[in-house]
């Protein structure tokens, strides 16, 4: 795995400048992430990578920081798309896609990096409220009239399939504090990472309480020859078809010229 470094513009100034003057009144903590680039191009041979995001805490309480009671969760969320989940059942001995459930606005990918295991950071309820973590993401069914049991079953299957495809991943310990207020998060990009606008979000927790969120956008696009082919196939599909046919005819003709035996 190669490492893509989207370096953050780190806001270091807050602590050093503000500390002496405002030491008396406790300040609310904040969190910042910034990406040095707003677009990442991946090439044809892309086989997955780690994306490093840097960020900083604003006004951290030195005591809390020393005790390690600040936790950060960083999420890289792919563009939302509708998805159909289908279940195979046996019909006359043959496995057939029978039931299906459509979900709206499902993030195509969802990579999480955390300072500690999720269950150690805060309560399950606050994850639900924040819709944070692959297992707490709210999946909205297109047809809400289906029975809750069915929706739950297909939601679980959707998460499981996404995780199996490497699109939903969790990197415990992927966020590390480099100093009292500077941290580095490593999120995983799957080999089949979807193109489009991804959203990087950082959540700050202090002693199990959610404090603040910050987000930044990242455009992931594929580059190179293969991507041009893909674009032509979709934007100029008729010409692409004509090209595919001509290529086949010329190959057949050349093959005959080169290898003719009669």
């Amino acid at each position, binding site marked *: 795995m190669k490492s893509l470094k989207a370096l953050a513009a780190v806001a270091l100034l807050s602590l050093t400048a503000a500390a002496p003057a405002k030491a008396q009144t406790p300040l609310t903590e904040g969190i910042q992430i910034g990406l040095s680039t707003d677009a990442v191009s991946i090439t044809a041979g892309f086989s997955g990578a780690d994306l490093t995001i840097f960020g900083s805490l604003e006004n951290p309480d030195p005591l809390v920081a020393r005790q390690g009671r600040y936790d950060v969760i960083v999420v890289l969320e792919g563009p939302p*798309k509708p998805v159909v989940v289908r279940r195979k059942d046996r019909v006359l001995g043959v496995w057939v896609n029978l039931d299906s459930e459509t979900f709206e606005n499902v993030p195509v990918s969802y990579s999480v990096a955390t300072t500690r295991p999720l269950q150690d950071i805060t309560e399950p309820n606050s994850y639900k409220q924040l819709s944070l973590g692959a297992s707490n993401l709210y999946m909205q069914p297109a047809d809400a009239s289906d029975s809750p049991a069915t929706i739950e079953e297909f939601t679980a299957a*959707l998460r499981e399939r996404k995780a199996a495809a490497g699109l939903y991943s969790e990197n415990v310990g992927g966020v590390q504090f480099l100093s009292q207020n500077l941290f580095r998060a490593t999120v995983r990009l799957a080999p089949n990472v979807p193109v489009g606008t991804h959203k990087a979000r950082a959540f700050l927790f202090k002693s199990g309480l959610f404090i603040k969120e910050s987000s930044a956008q990242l455009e992931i696009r594929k580059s190179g020859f293969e991507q041009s082919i893909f674009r032509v196939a979709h934007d100029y599909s008729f010409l692409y078809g004509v090209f595919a046919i001509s290529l086949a005819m010329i190959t057949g003709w050349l*093959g005959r010229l080169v290898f003719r035996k009669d």
Partner: protein
Amino acid sequence: MGIYLPIAEISVNVFVLLAMGAAVGFLSGMFGVGGGFLITPLLIFYNIPPAIAVATGANQVIASSVSGVLSHMKRGTLDFKLGSVLLAGGVVGSTGGIYVFGLLRRLGQLDLFISLLYVVLLGTVGGLMLVESINALRATRRGAAPVLKKSGQHNWVHRLPLKMRFRASKLFVSVIPVLGLGAGIGFLSSIMGVGGGFIMVPALIYLLKVPTNVVIGTSLFQIIFTSAYTTLVHATTNQTVDVMLAFLLMAGGVAGAQYGAKAGQRLRGEQLRALLALLVLAVAIRLAIDLFVTPPNLYSLSAVGLN
């Protein structure tokens, strides 16, 4: 060496695809078939999504058919008139097939339907061929001359109206079965990604009594256009033709075909047909097993909004 396929959106090994093309080309040269019925299932076994395997298979069939037709044109074993009538039916059949293809894809039943069609058709054709060739092998072992059906024998097909004369095939027959046959092959071509030679050739010989020497050339001639039409419609409606994949298969295929043709000359007709029948049956059985074996994952995801 890995290569990323732009439409299939997966990384594959170049040499595997070249070898696959060469192996199928070898067999197609040896047996005189287009090879589409082998390429598409092989691609599916290699984890290429079936929709892309089918459309790309149709694209690849053009290349092998073109080089085949060129040599038949030189020998004069090609009935353009018969081919054109077959083609007219083929265009209608392909259009219907593409519509059904898109519909099944939206319903999530495309993969199943493709596999079922393959199992049924390959199983039937392979089984019939195997029986026929084993009988022929036994007959030659007993020393009897193989009994061929005489052309000029008539069946129900020859009593239909709207007759037309096909000079190169020495045939005077109704256009209805010709158009119907073309349409059926066109339909299969667009759903299965095959040229349809493995059905067209026996149908022309046994149903329409076309002389065997013109059958292969004529069948290949119409397959070029049916596959070209299928490729174009798949490209415009489903965006499932992967030129990179098709080209690798063709490159391997045109080379392999020549060696296959040479190897084929050393084997006798009945032996060739028996081997081809076993091959066809093996593919059918392999696909049938997948239908019945419990899949590792019962759930599958697919994007909404195709078409």
